[in-house]
């Protein structure tokens, strides 16, 4: 169904999502924004995996992308559990303001 569009198109799309994720992580100061950036990077990987999985009889990429989604959910849940505790103690969620562990 997708022969009309070249693989480079999807590689570019996933590269764009990946680089946008990195930009968000660098630019934004909130921990939630960093999580958003991580999710975008994971989705970039998923897009690659699902796209190339079409050409793999073993469907490795598709299976992997399902697992990646599950792991991402677990990671976000853990991050929020920790963030809730941090908010209780600091009343902030900006990673830059957490500076009590500097040298």
């Amino acid at each position, binding site marked *: 169904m997708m022969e009309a569009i070249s*693989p480079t198109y999807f*590689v570019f799309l*996933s590269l764009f999502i*990946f680089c946008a*994720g990195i930009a968000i*992580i660098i630019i934004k100061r909130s*921990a939630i924004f*960093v*999580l958003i*950036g*991580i999710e975008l*990077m*994971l989705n*970039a*990987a*998923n897009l*690659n*995996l699902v*796209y*190339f999985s079409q*050409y*793999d009889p*073993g469907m*490795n*990429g598709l*299976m*992997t992308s399902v*697992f*990646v989604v599950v*792991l991402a959910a*677990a*990671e976000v849940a*853990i*991050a929020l*559990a*920790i*963030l809730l*505790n*941090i908010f209780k*103690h*600091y009343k902030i969620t900006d*990673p830059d303001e*957490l500076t*009590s*562990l500097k*040298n």
Partner: protein
Amino acid sequence: MMELSLQHVIEELTLLRFETALIVGSLVLLTAGMLSKDEVTYKVLFSITLLISLFLADVRDIGTSTSGAISIDSLSGILKILFAFISLWIVFFHSTFRRYEHYFLLLSIVLGSSLMLSANHLLLFYIAIELTSLSSYLITGFSFSRKGYEAAIKYLLFGGVSSAIMIYGISILYGLSGSMLISDMVINVQAGPFYHVGMICLLGGLFFKVGLVPYHFWVPSTYQEAPTDAVAILSIVPKIAGFALLHRVLISFELLSDPIYRQVIAVLGIATVLMGTFGALRQDNIKRMIAYGAIAHSGLVLPTLLIQGEQGGLAFVWYVTIYAIMTMAIFMIASMYEDFGIKDVKDMKGIGIQFPVMGALTLLILVAQIGLPPTAGFTAKFYLFSSIWNEYQASGATIILIYLIVGLLSVVLALFYYLKIPFHSFLGTAESPYFGNFSIISRSVVTIFTIMVLWIFLSPEFLNKIAFNINFIGW
């Protein structure tokens, strides 16, 4: 079809019986934790689980499953035995009440690390690394202090970014090769510039796990704030597994024959040694200092991966085994001082005079960390440096020589920071005498470790025999 695949499942589970035992044991621990409120129960179940898996691990049992996803070699057998053996000592840590969740997470770190050793499929790779990482993030927060949470979230954000980069690298490699099995990938991959992009991303995730520059930022704050027994596991088990995995990747993708990769890895290793050593010089917090020391140790293990053949393997097994023993000992000592409320080097004034035996044990373990005789630390460093020297003679690469010089320099500088502790504890004068005493169990365990460190120095045949066993895997 169905029966055939059932056979495959049974075959894979047989290969993974060490991990299966760990899973079953930790589930039992979880169930028991809901019924019993007694920490001794958790500790007993924790050690029974590890003992059973230790019993099931077998160095000679090597093989690859039919699907190719699981591949066990004798190196992973040896390292699994080391993991189970080292983790056993956790139960002797004297600490405040720990709930069963704590021991459950410790088991899952060991499980994830041993899976890392067996994975030959990039998905399993990723899952194993994530299992280890997620448990590590959680357990860092288990100190339930402000700083503990801060260290945990920083660790998580760093780790999340690096694992996202890693899975992106995997997806690129998959696109180029159409396969996820490492062995198939190498054959099918269409080499080109993008292949190296994918490879660098994949290596980056592994560098994070072992704490190499530029992925070392999480190490000091995590080691400083996480519960001490958890740090002892964290600094040993996932790190060694990460190095074994790194070696597997470097070998299977034939990156070591590429001089650029060798150069880059050597430069990163040198930077790691320098970063760890100079970072440690500035520290006063005991655990933070050990953390920087651990970074330097990572940098020192790295060159063994560049050395192909028997010598590299021998140096690697020697170094990681000794590293595991002395790191376990030093964290146990750190936790004993913590019971006294001592966290900084400056708080230790005169404690060695009041407790001379403890002071002497601390001194010996620190001498091992530095790498001086009469301890096994010296033997490990000796094997390491002689193998690097031989590698330099064989290849003539300047970078290897620089590596050797930097490594020796780090040993000299290690004298300055590690010996701060005995300096203060023996030569300082206490403002007031310390009350209380060290727990007798911890003291005897530290004594056992010290004897081990001395005994291995005096009769290294025992370890040599083990290290010799891995020769046939072709390091």
